[in-house]
C-alpha cells in the first residue's frame, strides 16, 4: 500500500515539478519530432498490414511539440523524493515504452476508424484519446512509488 508521508512536502514537490517541467518542455519540443517520426513509421507499418493498400499517414504529422505531456511525465519521476537515479532512469524508461505503445496504438486505431468511415470514434478510443496519457502516467507513477515503498523482506541471520 502507498503509505502516508510519501510526499512529505507536497508544496515543495509541486514547485519542483513545475520548475523541472518548465525547463524540460523546450528540450522535449525538439526531441518530440523524432518520437513522432518513430510512431508514424510504426503506424504506417500497421496500416500496410491491416488497412487498405497504399494508405499512409501524412508526413506533416511529424513536427515539434507533440505529446507535451511526456515532458511532465518525465519530470514527475525526476522530482519524486527519496529515490535514486537508477530508480528514476528505470521507471522513466519503462514509462516511455508504455507511452510509446499507447500513442502508437491510439494513432493506428484513429487512422483505422477514419478509414472505416465511422461518424464517431468508438468509446474505448475516445477515452484513450482524452484520458490516455494522463491516466497512464499517474497510474505508472503510483505503481512505481508503491513498489519502492514496500518494506524489504527481513532476512534472519544464519545461526552457526
Amino acid at each position, binding site marked *: 500500500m502507498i503509505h502516508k508521508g510519501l510526499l512529505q512536502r*507536497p508544496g515543495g514537490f509541486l514547485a519542483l515539478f513545475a520548475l523541472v517541467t518548465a525547463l524540460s518542455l523546450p528540450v522535449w519540443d525538439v526531441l518530440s519530432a523524432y518520437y513522432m517520426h518513430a510512431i508514424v513509421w510504426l503506424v504506417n507499418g500497421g496500416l500496410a498490414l491491416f488497412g487498405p493498400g497504399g494508405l499512409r499517414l501524412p508526413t506533416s504529422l511529424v513536427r515539434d511539440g507533440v505529446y507535451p505531456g511526456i*515532458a511532465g511525465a518525465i519530470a514527475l519521476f525526476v522530482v519524486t523524493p527519496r529515490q535514486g537515479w537508477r530508480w528514476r532512469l528505470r521507471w522513466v524508461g519503462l514509462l516511455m515504452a508504455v507511452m510509446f505503445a499507447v500513442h502508437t496504438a491510439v494513432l493506428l486505431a484513429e487512422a483505422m476508424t477514419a478509414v472505416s468511415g465511422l461518424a464517431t470514434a468508438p468509446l474505448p478510443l475516445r477515452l484513450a484519446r482524452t484520458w490516455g496519457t494522463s491516466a497512464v502516467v*499517474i497510474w505508472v507513477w503510483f505503481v512505481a512509488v*508503491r513498489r519502492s515503498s514496500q518494506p524489504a523482506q527481513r532476512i534472519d541471520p544464519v545461526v552457526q
Partner: protein
Amino acid sequence: MTVTPLSAVRRRLGFCALFGLHALFMAYALDRWDTALSLPWLQAISYTTARLLQMMGMTVSLGAVPGEYAILSMQHIVFHVTRECTGVYALGLYVAAVLSYPTILAQRLKALCWGVPAFFCYSIARLVLLAVISAVAPGWSGFLHVYLLVIVNAGFLLWLWATWVNHLPDEKSL
C-alpha cells in the same frame, strides 16, 4: 479501523488496481454523462473566468459552440475553452485517487468537499493567468498554453492528494 468485507476486498485489490478501476469508471462516467457533469463544469469555469477578467478591466465577451466549447473573446486573444482546458480529466483522476485510498468514507467525502472547489479555483486561476500573460507578453502564450493547461495538472492533483493523505488521522484512531 473496522474491517468490513468491503474494506477487506479493497485491501486485497490494492491501491494501484483500485486506482485503475476508479480511473476507468471516472473516464466512462464523464463521457457518458457529459451534459450533466463536464459541460456545466466548463460553463461555470468559463463564466467565472470571464467575470473575473471583466473585473480586472479587460473587455471580454463569452460565447459558446453549444455542447462543444466556450469562447472567451478578448481584445488581444480568443480562447476556445475545451474540457481539457478546465482540468476536468485531472479532477477525475483526483477523485479516483481519493476513492482508492484505504480510509473511512467521511475522510473521502472531506477530500472531495475541498478537492473539487480547489480544482475549480485552480482551473479559473490558470485561465486568468493565461489571459493576463497573453496581454502582457503575447510571445509566451503558446508555451504557457501547453505548460499551464496540459502539464501542471498532474503536479497539482498529486499535491492535493498528498496533502489530504498527509492530514489523515492514523489508522488506529479511525
